[in-house]
């Protein structure tokens, strides 16, 4: 019986389905492309499967830049799959995306008044590499549906929400509070499976601060 061996408890606790408070559970992740952020996040990156919420004070303060390194890396993934943008606040500008190394041809934009439904379809289908959605209001119950759909479709989903929703309950895997500053941003992990508690500062590589 392997369970009776000396290190069996340690082995058991390493199982991905088990996590305890601050312990670093082994979860499948995607590197964010920012070293400081990778070190702060549990597992060293964005959750590979499940919902991540990014709470920003308003649209267009750099919150999209957080995902640019990941989007750029997905350009090289084969076979190609869609990156779905659901109800973005403005038009994603293809030349700028291309300049950041993002594969423009793989981006799919969905304009809808019901972003949660579209997000569920995108996550559930398994046809997307990544799904991004800009959501104004969402009940914890509908977020739970998204979280389950992401699990079924094995897809990472990112929700951009307003800062005011920080106090609401959410079943998301990871909740990040985003605050822009002079040449980068400060991130706080509102909810994570064992991430750091201290704020994480990141700097944009080109010194191209959002604020």
């Amino acid at each position, binding site marked *: 019986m392997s369970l009776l061996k000396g290190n069996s408890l340690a082995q058991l606790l390493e199982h991905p389905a088990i996590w305890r408070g601050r312990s670093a559970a082994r979860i499948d992740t995607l590197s964010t492309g920012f070293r400081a952020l990778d070190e702060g996040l549990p597992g060293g990156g964005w959750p590979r499967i499940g919902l991540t919420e990014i709470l920003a004070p308003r649209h267009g303060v750099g919150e999209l830049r957080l995902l640019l390194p990941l989007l750029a890396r997905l350009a090289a993934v084969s076979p190609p799959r869609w990156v779905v943008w659901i109800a973005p606040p403005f038009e994603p*500008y293809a030349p700028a995306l291309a300049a950041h190394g993002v594969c423009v041809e793989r981006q799919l934009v969905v304009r809808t008044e019901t972003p949660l439904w579209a997000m569920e379809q995108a996550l559930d289908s398994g046809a997307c590499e990544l799904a991004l959605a800009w959501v104004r209001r969402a009940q914890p119950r509908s977020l739970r549906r998204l979280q389950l759909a992401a699990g079924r479709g094995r897809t990472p989903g990112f929700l951009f929400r307003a800062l005011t929703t920080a106090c609401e309950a959410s079943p998301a895997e990871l909740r990040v509070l985003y605050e822009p500053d002079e040449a980068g941003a400060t991130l706080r992990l509102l909810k994570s499976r064992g991430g750091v508690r201290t704020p994480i500062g990141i700097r944009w590589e080109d010194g191209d601060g959002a604020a």
Partner: protein
Amino acid sequence: MAPRDRAASDRRAFLTRGRASPASAVAPGMAPTPAMAMAMAPELQLVQSELGLATEVAEAWIALHLPALVLESLTHGSVPAAAAPPLAIFEPGGSMPRLVAVDAAARARGVVPGLTLAAALALAPALDARPRQPRRERALLARLAEACFAFTPRVSLEPPDGLLLEVRGSLGLFGGAAALCEAVQARCGALGLGARHALAPTPLAALALARAGRAVAITGSERLVGALAALPLALLRWPPSTLARLESMGVRTCGEALRLPRAGFARRFGRGMLEDLDRLVGRRPDLRRPFVARAAFRGRCEPSFELEHHEAILRHLEPLLASLESFLRSRQAAVCLLRLRLGHRPDPHDASVRATPLELRLAAPEFSAARFGALLGEHLARLVLPAPVIRIGLRSGELQPLAAQSGALWRPGEHGGGGARESPALIERLRARLGAGAVYALCLVPEHRPERAWQVAEPSGLHEPGAPAGPRGRRPLWLLKTPQHLGQGIRSLRLLEGPERIETGWWDGQDVARDYYVARDCAGAKLWIFRERLPPNEWFLHGVFG
């Protein structure tokens, strides 16, 4: 290989080796069987290898006889109502229309085919009497013929109520004659048709056996005459006068007719009858006009009651979609476009309400009835019907060859699993609910005007990344659809970089002359703004550096 088969293939092989003579229409490899070659050029001398009659051809015909086709053609496609009145179908025309078919409920009331309509109505006053519709019978027969392309490419119609399939080449594939007959019967049953079948080496024999209800499978011609001997001659559907004269001679069965002296038979009844007998037993080739399938699907259904809810419409659509799928499968084809037409009950107050058209466009060619059903369901759920639906018509767009795909080993998201099959499905589902314009892909355009440097693209297929774009000026991640007039708002902004002058497009009348700046607003967001170079030199917001 059985000796018979080998002999047959020997004969075919000889034909393929034959010389083409300029006078004859037969060239090597042109005619699939010696029988066909003979028919194309009767003067052709078929050289036989070692055995009997040249016209003895190794063919196997399945005949399908549809005794209830007249009835089925009128009830097909409609869901039977619970308490439907007894149904009888009469042949219109003439002063005394006679019934040609009745259903079980009518038969229980003593109404049988052959009665005059007046007599039938006297027997069963509640009788639902409808005129026969030969066009619908033909259409239904053609649909069965199309379904039978699943078994053989050689299908021919035998109107008004029969179908012939030449299945020699399919016997091995379907596991023998009995299994093939069973599969054909199952296909008839799936279409809601009651059929009788028989398999024989000649089409006429198969038809006669099927009409007699003998579900036999005779693959060798040596057993054929014995099986035919007891069949009544009436099954051959000869003219009634001929049959009456034969009966007066005491000749009632095929066996008796075959025993008559040939010369005398020909003199009394004409060469045509003798040739028919020869075709029956395979002494003469029997050529059948092959059935040619339609180039596009067209189906309709008339429910027996008015449909008001989309679920009910969808339920009635299912059989249509199933036949569309078998139509497409038999052609190895798929479609990108379906047209649905929901016919409404004519409204006395509003003549404009006649039909609601619905178009289903797909991102990738599709053939599966389940997929069509799911997508049409989404469309129907959004549709507001002006009146109840009494008729449903379905037409397919142009057929496209179906490229067979093998299923992925991995689920999407696992190891090497791509979303090849799922991504068109996702796009169609989103478009079905949100409209075609709401789901789009992006593409780059080599153009200096910022709003024209990108374009909405059709999300048709995923591409490998293209060539990286060349270096450009600083561009924002977000672009406003139309530049937003800043007015006095410019005072609260602080310019960081610029200007970048963009002055182009004079050739198409959409010229721009702008100085672009990067600015920061008081809340800290970085903006892309420009100033018109032409008076009144207004400031506009054009993008946001996300």
